[in-house]
């Protein structure tokens, strides 16, 4: 497997693969289609109809401890909702999945025949360890607040659904190191933005210890993002990363 695979080949997906047949498809559709009345907005109307009938994907779990109930009551009192616990649950889940994404990236590195020009594996492994550390730190904070770090909150569930494509791409043996790294870049972009939000939420609740720990995590995530973004750019432009970065 090469680092970058964007070679010319026998891709058959385009209409121009056979313009004669493609025109038959196009002209046939134009002359032989009498569509049902309306337009694509009907799909939107149906979504709205079901939204009115449906409920949420789930709820933030009710705390099982006295401390948890107090934290929950405090958040409700100060914020009017339980967003912090929901988003903390999301970070726990996201970082946990993030470690698996980095493990898959390391496999991709190891399976790349020509590793010249690839980023330093030690740096990738460092990022992996930091994701693992962030997962456990966030779970610790959840426990200190009396919450259940093993529960799947609504935002954790939704983040998992949104990230399903990343897992598919990075674990596919046919994808290259660079294609996988671009997947990590997407995850790091989201991760950065979500840590920023979580810090704001913790600060609003006066959770100073959490703010401090989250800020350390964010600093590390900023480095992940900056580094991965630069690797992606350099690998696309030059086929190798600059030594300066490492």
């Amino acid at each position, binding site marked *: 497997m090469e680092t970058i695979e964007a070679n010319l080949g026998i891709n058959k997906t385009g209409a121009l693969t056979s313009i004669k047949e493609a025109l*038959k*498809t196009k002209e046939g*559709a134009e002359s032989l289609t009498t569509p049902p*009345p*309306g337009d*694509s907005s009907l*799909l939107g109307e*149906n979504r709205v*109809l*079901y939204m009115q009938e449906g409920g949420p994907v789930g709820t933030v779990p009710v705390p099982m401890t006295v401390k948890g109930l107090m934290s929950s009551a405090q958040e409700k009192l100060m914020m009017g909702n339980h967003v912090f616990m929901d988003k903390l649950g999301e970070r726990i889940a996201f970082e946990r999945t993030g470690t698996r994404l980095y493990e898959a990236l390391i496999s991709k590195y190891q399976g790349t025949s020509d590793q010249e020009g690839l980023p330093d594996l030690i740096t990738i492994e460092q990022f992996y360890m930091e994701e693992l550390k962030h997962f456990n730190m966030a779970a610790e904070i959840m426990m200190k607040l009396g919450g259940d770090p093993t529960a799947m909150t609504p935002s954790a569930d939704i983040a998992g659904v949104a990230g399903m494509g990343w897992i598919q791409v990075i674990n596919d043996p046919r994808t290259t190191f660079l294609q996988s790294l671009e997947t990590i870049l997407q995850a790091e972009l989201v991760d950065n933005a979500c840590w920023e939000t979580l810090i704001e939420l913790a600060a609003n609740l006066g959770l100073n210890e959490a703010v401090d720990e989250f800020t350390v995590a964010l600093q590390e995530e900023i480095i992940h993002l900056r580094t991965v973004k630069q690797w992606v750019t350099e690998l696309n432009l030059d086929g190798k990363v600059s030594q300066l970065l490492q």
Partner: protein
Amino acid sequence: MSINLFTDKGTPLDQQRFTWKDLVQKPLSKLNDDAFTRIRVILMNGIELEAVRFSHACARMNAELQLPLAKIRRVEQHQATLVNWLLGSDHSPLETTIGYEQVAIEVTAAVALKEPDPYLAQTYRYGLLEDFDHMYRYTALLDRLEGKDSNCILQNYTDIIPGRPTVFEHRDPADDLRFPYDRHSAELISKFHALTIMAGEQQTHNYYMNIGPLFSDPTARQLYAEIASIEEQHVTQYESIIDPDETWMEKWLIHEANEVYNYYSCVMSETNPRIKALWERFLDYELGHFQAVQEIFKQIEMRDPLEIISGKLPAPLEYKSHRNFVREVLKKEVDYRSVGKEYVTSSEEETDRSLQYRDYMNSEGIPSETVAAGYIYKPGTENAMNLLRKH
């Protein structure tokens, strides 16, 4: 290359083995492989799944056959796995759906053209126009949900035009049943055709029932519910054309012969050398199954299998675009309806039972109409400018 079911012995059953690594091979390329390679993969998965389902049904009714059925079924389970796992993970469930409907169109058209019995040929053409319509509805969904062009899967082989509108396909069960072929007088190819198309429809029905709930969009969930219902009707239709008086052993032997025939057709048409080698391997496996089953047939039925199966296989199934044939059928037969087991040429003649059933099912909205409201297929999706104009 010609195959004789009785003289070509194939691979003995005890030499048909797999490893987990063997079952999970490099998948076909969604981008580079020919659409007909995917069509063959999907159909052969359906053929193998039917083999497994039939084998279970037979085992439940025939204690003395349970062990030989289980032995062959184990191999067929693994053949189905190896074949189905050739689909790449970059196919979204909806893209695979487009592939399934392309199978239904191109394979049913090939069968309809070759079928010697006029009533059975009419039955295939009738079903064909319904699956043809599903392609149009799913293409609209793929475009409007994922922003993708279904022609990337179809590769210019298949039209994207409404067929018999799905809204009119909902019928009373009494209008889904058909007359069966006569096991004594039907040609072998007619038996193969019926089993093949039934197997394809059955796996499509199962597939839609499994993946429908994976969608979040309400119209997508509804559309899969609606079309899965039609696929269920199609299984009802196609299983009813098979003579129910065939004995269990007769049915088993025809199943194995049909599997040989279908792998033979794949070998004769496959363009990907790696996949062709798999078809050749499984052709030999199926010849081995046929050998084993014909021996059991002789013991149980005390008669010669040649009484029901001729050794020489019919000409292979043709894997090619049937654009012109489908358009011809569309023009002539789109208004055909079924009344009991007969076909009528006008929608005016439909039964009250079907009309009443349909009216109620459609009374709270019709997903297949909603999804395609105002939709006319365009290369590059409906939001594209004219992408095929000359520069």
